[in-house]
């Protein structure tokens, strides 16, 4: 029931998080130079071959283009079909700068939380007045 009312589930949360980070990663890659789809995927997933459904970057690319943050042009390849190269627009560079700054802030929040000492446990022996039962309706 809660699922219906709140309208979200875990999968949705992960998708949201991933979408935002991937968008930033794509902007970051393009900030360093032009890329075509496949080379973007390779750069993002890196040496460790992070499990990434490669097709997901195309919808993101088309959205970024629609928002005017990136631009594209077709170029002949020395072998095989032509490639569609993407570059950042001026607006895109500015967006990347802002987003990256924000991301660093957020990343340090997570780091802070992980470094922080465990909360005070002195109260454990005291009487517990009320316990709210946590419910999981998923």
């Amino acid at each position, binding site marked *: 029931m809660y699922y*219906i009312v709140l309208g979200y589930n875990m999968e949705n949360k992960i998708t949201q998080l991933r979408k935002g980070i991937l968008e930033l990663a794509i902007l970051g890659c393009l900030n360093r130079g032009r890329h*075509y*789809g*496949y080379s973007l995927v390779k750069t993002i997933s890196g040496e460790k071959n992070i499990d990434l459904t490669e097709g*997901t970057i195309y*919808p993101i690319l088309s959205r970024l283009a629609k928002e005017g943050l990136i631009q594209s042009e077709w170029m002949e390849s020395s072998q095989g079909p032509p490639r569609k190269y993407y570059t950042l627009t001026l607006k895109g560079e500015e967006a990347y700068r802002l987003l990256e700054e924000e991301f660093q802030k957020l990343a340090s929040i997570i780091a802070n939380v992980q470094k922080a000492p465990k909360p005070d446990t002195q109260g454990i022996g005291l009487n517990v007045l009320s316990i709210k039962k946590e419910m999981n309706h998923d």
Partner: protein
Amino acid sequence: MTNGLSGPVAQIVDNYLARLRKGLKGFPTQDQEELVKEIHSHIYESFQNDPTTNEVERILNVLDKLGEPGVVISTRMPSAMVKLGKKKKLPFYILAGFLITIFGLPLGLGGLSLALGIIITVLALILTFYVGAFSLILGGWLSALVMAVRIFSPGFLHPWVNSYAIVSNPTLNSLIYILGSLLVAAMGLGFLWLGTRMMRGVRFVFRFLFEKIKNSRKRVRESA
């Protein structure tokens, strides 16, 4: 389409691209061709760079990494639609088209109050629906319970509950009533299940409307 590949590999790729095209139906032709071309290029590059020696195995590997055509297309649809799963597109499109015809036109304040009225009506309907479903469940279970007690003590709640005798055997009669009550409760549960489906539709409509309103306001601001 010659795809720079040959034999069974080319066939597999063609099949994938055909499925991609199918999924893109309804989008502007230029967009369709552009995306198909781009994905084709991706498949080619990926194929060239994959170390697997068996070509068929290699192309299947490449397509697996790329994901189903649905993944590639997904966010080209309004974001609300994606969140609701990809299988039930058509009814949503029809509904969306219908809503755009009503609200896509600039109606001003009159449009807003109309929209608000519809929203309130929908919310009221949902509430009624759930109240109805819960009363069916509750009523069903309660009458089943009462009837079950009446099997053992026939006088239970006598002046208030008086069941019409369908068959002469009172125990059998109560059993029939219990069965009926449980059916009513099951119907209530069925309604709840239906409700989950309905809520998805309603959520979509609201998100869609919200997005439309947001977009049109943005457009107004940009043109000003």
